[in-house]
């Protein structure tokens, strides 16, 4: 029963969603189901948030390794929750939007959260360099082609690319580095991306059929699948 009910629900909803694409009177069902999912996900947030609190409180209580960081996590969680729920510092009072200019939530968002987010994103600059150094080695034919393409794109994205090949006449402008970079992105790269997307589309169909028909049941914790 514990496995049968989810499988039946999956089958019914899956078939309804497929049919709703072709049957006009059922077209609104897709949006309705999305809304249902959003509601369920919001309730599930209490589970996640509760789990987070429990783990860190446990760590604090038992003075486990790095318990000091748990204070930061819990502190941040409680402050943001209070600032949003109680509208602390909100010029409009408790009835106003939590993101009003001057509200504590908005201030923390602008001066703490956004810089942190930008910092993490900025790490990519360093990691791109270290990954390129490690990965772009001419070990075989394919790797060499990848290396040459990477070079052309990197050069094409800088003014040196144009400087190096500005002397090429207009009739052969396709050989200018920036134009070669655009050609690489427009032709072989796009062709490869489209092929991968076709494969992904077919993979999604196959996976979805397995899920809807109950052939694939591992995600329910059913080891017999």
């Amino acid at each position, binding site marked *: 029963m514990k496995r049968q009910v989810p499988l039946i629900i999956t089958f019914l909803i899956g078939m309804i969603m497929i049919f709703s694409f072709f049957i006009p009177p059922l077209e609104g069902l897709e949006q309705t189901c999305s809304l249902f999912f959003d509601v369920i996900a919001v309730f599930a947030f209490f589970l996640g948030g509760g789990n987070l609190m429990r783990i860190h409180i446990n760590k604090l209580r038992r003075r486990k390794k790095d318990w000091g960081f748990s204070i930061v996590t819990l502190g941040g969680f409680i402050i943001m929750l209070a600032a949003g729920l109680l509208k602390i510092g909100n010029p409009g009072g408790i009835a106003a939007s939590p993101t009003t200019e001057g509200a504590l939530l908005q201030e923390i968002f602008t001066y703490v959260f*956004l810089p942190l*987010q*930008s910092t993490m*994103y900025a790490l990519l*600059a*360093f990691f*791109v*360099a*270290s990954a*390129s*150094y*490690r990965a*772009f*080695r*001419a*070990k075989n034919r394919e790797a060499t082609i990848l*290396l040459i393409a*990477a*070079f052309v794109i*990197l*050069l094409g*994205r*800088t*003014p*040196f690319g*144009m400087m190096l090949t500005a002397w090429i006449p207009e009739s052969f402008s396709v050989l200018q580095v*920036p*134009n070669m970079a*655009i050609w690489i*992105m*427009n032709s072989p*790269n*796009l062709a490869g*991306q489209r092929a991968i997307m076709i494969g992904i589309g077919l993979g999604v169909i196959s996976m979805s059929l397995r899920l809807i028909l109950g052939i694939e049941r591992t995600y329910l914790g059913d080891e017999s699948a």
Partner: protein
Amino acid sequence: MLDTAFSIPLVALSDIGRVISLLVIGGGLLWILIRSLRAKEVDRRIVFLFIFIAVAAPILFPITFQERATLIVKRVFDKVESSPAGSKVLLAFDFDPAMAPEVQPMADAFSRHCLEKGHKVIFMTLWATGQALLTQSLERVVRGEYPDKLDGVDYINLGFKAGNENVLNIIVTDFRMMFPTDVNGVPLDSTSIFDDVKSCKDLDLIIAIGGGKPGVKEWVLYIGDRVNVPMAAGVAAVVAPQLYPYYPKQLLGLLGGVKGAAEYESELVKWYPHLKERGTPGLRMMGPQTLAHMVVMAFIVIGNISYFISRRRERIQ
């Protein structure tokens, strides 16, 4: 940023800074190259250090390069430039703070260009986080640099509307159904900018800026293809390849990342030299980007040298 206020005679401190940075980077890479000839691998922390210097130095001691607009960018510029004064241009700010460093310069450049030409600019966004960035842009560029331009007459801010592509589905036939007022609550009917604008069909140009969803693809699918209004786009560099199929039919031009912004700015200051003093963040960011790219390319070469030499040694042994 150090400027000539601290310069010594004949040579500015910033010039000294530039030279030292380039010497440090160049010298450091040369040293690593020599090490690689002995088949020694480079610690990733050294790579990080070089990237840090390559990005920080051009910011502290401005290093800028000349840019020339490629055709895909020039077409956008030419369209804005050749449109008669008073043309209705819509700018959609569909991005968040994470994407802002890449696309905000092009958004500002578009705003400046349109206002210089005397076009009537309609600002809006489909992203909740885009609203704050739109407001910042309006304060900095529109109200800050063009105080004579009137809200409701020369430009208007429609703000953010939730609904993603559903918003586009509606404004394609009726703006007022989705935006009865602007962001300040002023009815569109009482603004002169919307006198002869009922829907997107009445616009002369749409420029969608962003890189996520909803973004340029949605604008092309729901608006551009349906009403035949010229459309251009400015997106983050990683998203640009996915939009090349739409160029040049559905998109008359496309700006990709900081490079695209820099190319547009270079074209803009060529035609309007006085705009140079208002800042060209795209061109300024090309300095770090160019140096960082050169450093990455240098490391790729060094890595391959190291790889081939160690492989040869293994074969000999």
